[in-house]
């Protein structure tokens, strides 16, 4: 079966069609910051400005803040009221391959020994429509991290920019089913495939930042106790939460109760291992010094996640590099991690 395609000017009509079946999310700056937001029914202006969002699309499944349950003290203990699970079918339009891979990585944690109902209820019915990059950022290094600007691996449908149109690649059964039900799509012409191949190559070549992760797990293991290295690496970090909260693979959350008299609400919200009071609730944060927290962040992504799930929890989206107030650059850090011979104990 030949591929379908859609004109850029028809994207609003396409999203309008999909809106009947899904809650459609698309890139938007309406809130004052680029994020995936519920589509307003008309805006396709993002096609002009969109490179990637500041707020990663993980926020659609793991919101910055969510109510877990309401509780009230009764005669015999607490009465708990859980809000109805949010099982709306979401369609995320315009997901970048780096972020799609990131969501697959986060899924591993939330589907592991403990299945997280808050995350999975939103995630399980979601359709991801990827949008291949044409203009990667200077800070992007996806091609070193197991993906690339037009990688279709982790989405249901992938749109490739071929000029005035997008070629639609049907990736999963879910994606194929959606396309079968979608009206008014055009059949791809003979040379569209060639245009797509060219578009992919151009985008790939534009990712100039490279990172060699060969043996990184072992190097991190060897340098774990190299305090001097980590102190120097952490020196300019200001311990803010930007690189973690806005990382598409970071999923840590904090839990807080807000209580007035006998009743209250339990919330969870994004947390960061960069914060001095992270994991403070049981006792103390074992990582009081900044260098230990910076080491944790790096090791979690490049050592511990590979040990647990056999994949590096970084997809090269570059947000942490672009947004860091002090230009702390993860690629430079990873390159400089001492190996076994160099590491000081």
């Amino acid at each position: 079966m030949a591929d379908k395609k859609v004109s850029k000017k028809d994207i609003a009509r396409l999203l309008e069609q999909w809106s009947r079946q899904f809650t459609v999310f698309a890139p938007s700056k309406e809130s004052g910051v680029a994020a995936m937001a519920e589509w307003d029914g008309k805006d396709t202006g993002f096609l002009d400005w969109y490179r990637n969002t500041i707020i990663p699309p993980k926020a659609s499944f793991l919101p910055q803040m969510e109510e877990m349950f309401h509780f009230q003290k009764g005669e015999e203990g607490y009465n708990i009221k859980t809000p109805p699970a949010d099982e709306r079918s979401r369609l995320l339009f315009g997901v970048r391959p780096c972020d799609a891979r990131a969501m697959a990585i986060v899924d591993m944690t939330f589907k592991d020994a403990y299945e997280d109902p808050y995350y999975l209820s939103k995630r399980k019915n979601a359709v991801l429509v990827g949008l291949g990059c044409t203009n990667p950022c200077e800070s992007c290094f996806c091609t070193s991290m197991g993906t690339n600007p037009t990688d279709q691996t982790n989405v249901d449908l992938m749109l490739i920019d071929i000029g005035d149109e997008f070629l639609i690649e049907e990736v999963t059964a879910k994606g194929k089913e959606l396309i079968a039900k979608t009206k008014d799509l055009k059949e791809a012409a003979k040379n569209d495939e060639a245009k797509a191949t060219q578009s992919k190559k151009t985008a790939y070549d534009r990712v100039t930042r490279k990172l060699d992760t060969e043996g990184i797990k072992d190097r991190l293991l060897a340098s774990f106790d190299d305090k001097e290295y980590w102190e120097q690496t952490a020196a300019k970090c200001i311990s803010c939460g930007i690189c973690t909260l806005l990382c598409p693979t970071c999923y840590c959350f904090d839990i807080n109760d807000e209580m007035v008299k006998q009743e209250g609400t339990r919330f969870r919200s994004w947390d960061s291992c960069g914060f001095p009071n992270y994991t403070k609730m049981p006792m103390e944060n074992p990582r009081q010094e900044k260098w230990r927290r910076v080491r944790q962040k790096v090791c979690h992504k490049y050592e511990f996640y590979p040990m647990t799930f056999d994949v590096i929890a970084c997809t090269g989206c570059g947000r942490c590099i672009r947004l860091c107030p002090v230009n702390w650059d993860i690629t430079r850090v990873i390159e400089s991690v001492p190996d076994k011979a160099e590491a000081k104990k």
Partner: protein
Amino acid sequence: MEQKLRQEAKTLLEQNKVDRIIGFEPGSLKFTATPLITGDKNDTERLIINPFIVNNLADFLTGIEGRVGIVAKGCDSRSIVSLIQDNKVARENVVILAVPCPGLIDLAKIERLVGKNRDELDDITRDGDKIIVTVDGKKKEFSLSQALFDHCLACELPTPQEYDILLGEPRPPAPELQTSGQNITKLKETLPTERWEFWKNEFSRCIRCYACRNACPACFCQRCFVEETEPQWVMPVPRWQDNLIFQIVRNIHVAGRCTDCGECERVCPVNIPLRSLTREMYNMVDELFSFKSGMDKEALPLMAHYEQEEAEDLFR
């Protein structure tokens, strides 16, 4: 200026006058500089001074032991002086390498002016009172008020007053100080209800990363009130109400310490115009107490000293 800086910094380390140098080296992205904190004299070769040295390096002083040589623009020097006033930094432990600063280039403004992202630009240079941006091989000229940070347009002290080594010719303050900036002027013209809606909307997207606080040299509390859990002053949950309270209290806490360096607004990843709050506070401190923070190291800290004669019964 750079050559002199490198030489002076190297000498300070060689003669063991300081344990560390805090300055800037080239960043890993176009048009960026990144803080360099080092005790190795060979690293001083990497020190730079250019219109992109945006960080307020005074922020690092309270976390560092020993004697430090620090590169300071006017605003950084005011923050250092403010820290000295508050007894957070001992004057004898810092060697201030003073950079007369002609103002820093605001990349967000440049992006809006040319309609391109910073990494798509070929070059940004300064020629006298013009900022020249090269895009797709073509040069575009902008005025300083178009291209510099708002806080630079309001800078009262381009050259540090308190220093040990001066690295260039002192510069006068900008001829026409734009003390408030457009945002603040516009906001002040709105009704209080409209302003409330404005801030509610702005703070709705705060992610509580605390970059504003952590980049701020005046925010030196070892433990911030937002992190207190007993009692819990404010929920750590990023609701607009809590976000707004956090920022209002932070603002009051830095009154008399804020030197209008603009870092809080620059580092905010979600574009909250924080300087509209801090600058207004700065102006109020000046109007009410005739106090400009970080100008005089002998002055007592505005909010941290008390005299018997003061009229308030509360503190007697």
